């Protein structure tokens, strides 16, 4: 990856993995179910090819989006392919209509999970970096993966080169749900984070 050393890439991977582990713990507390995760796979991809990393631009997904404010600004998008989103809705809001595009309860369930996962992911990142990092209230979209992610990238006025995509399979009460966590740092923010982790330079 342009401008990043192997050590920096490894550090980003490690930090993302720990963040995802903490998110899984939070999910377990929320659902009161055993939650296991597979080892998170962190990739650093270019914004223009992020669709491929999410299983295709036209993959239908439910996504939660928060802006990260504080000492290192960025954007955090959690993406669940629609099938996985249905399983989450069943767990959090049993009996709800499974259509998060139209059903308010289903949307709330996705928003709640987005809130819990992004907060715990960021808390973990904040602990490791000793930076003050806070999420805004999540916004929800149910649509093509490409449409959602490119809109977040466009909002930064920049095709950012460093976009961290972490893929994890969650196993919640025996149901397997694949999910993606995409962290898009604002220009300069990645450097701040890497410096705080002692791998700046």
């Amino acid at each position, binding site marked *: 990856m342009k401008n990043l050393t192997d050590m920096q890439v490894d550090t980003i991977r490690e930090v993302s993995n720990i963040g995802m582990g903490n998110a899984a713990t939070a999910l377990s507390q929320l659902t009161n179910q055993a939650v296991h995760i597979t080892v998170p796979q962190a990739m650093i991809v270019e*914004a*223009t*090819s992020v*669709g491929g990393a999410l299983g*295709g*631009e*036209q993959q*239908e997904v439910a996504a939660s*989006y928060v*802006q990260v*404010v504080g000492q290192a600004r960025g954007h955090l998008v959690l993406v669940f392919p629609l099938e996985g989103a249905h399983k989450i809705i069943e767990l959090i809001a049993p009996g709800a209509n499974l259509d998060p*595009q139209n059903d308010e309860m289903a949307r709330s369930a996705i928003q709640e999970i987005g809130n819990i996962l992004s907060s715990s992911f960021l808390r973990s990142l904040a602990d490791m970096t000793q930076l003050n990092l806070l999420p*805004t*209230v999540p*916004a*929800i*979209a*149910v*649509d*093509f*993966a*490409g*449409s*959602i*992610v*490119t*809109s*977040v*990238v*466009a*909002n930064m*006025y*920049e*095709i950012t080169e460093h976009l961290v995509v972490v893929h994890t399979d969650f196993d919640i009460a025996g149901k397997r749900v694949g999910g993606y966590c995409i962290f898009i740092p604002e*220009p300069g923010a990645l450097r701040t984070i890497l410096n705080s982790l002692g791998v700046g330079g």
Partner: protein
Amino acid sequence: MALIRVGMAEIKLGTPGDTLQALGLGSCIGLALVDRVSHVGGMAHIMLPDSTLARNSNPLPGKFADTAVPSLLDEVLAAGAVRTRLVVKMAGGAEMFRFAGKDAPKLAIGSRNIEHVHEQLNQNNLKLSAEDVGGSHGRTFEVELNELRFVIKVVGKPPSGL
């Protein structure tokens, strides 16, 4: 005969038999210019309204409405298209997220993209034939050059012609 993907900030040309495709447009805009007689055409995948917003000093011309429209026009004309025979269609410009609360970021890029592309079409004397823009849903925009068929795909609905 090729399926030509037009990625974010790209401009791509096609000849009869080709299909130009912009996958998963959100706030971005897919703009197609196609010669209705020779079926030579091109598509731009426009990301932002205005190149004065550029942080990078040397951005791709397809990235901004004000540079993408003239560049796309130049390229299709250079490829043999005739200006008076151009079919001009566009899709995209949605607002994918709505935010609540006082910290709500101003996410009006979709509508500003639409506005600026319209303005650029006017300035370049191009008449819009059809559009499917705005709203809060994503779109895939395809142009089958042979058939002069313009297709919009959205989640949860069958594909429709534009």
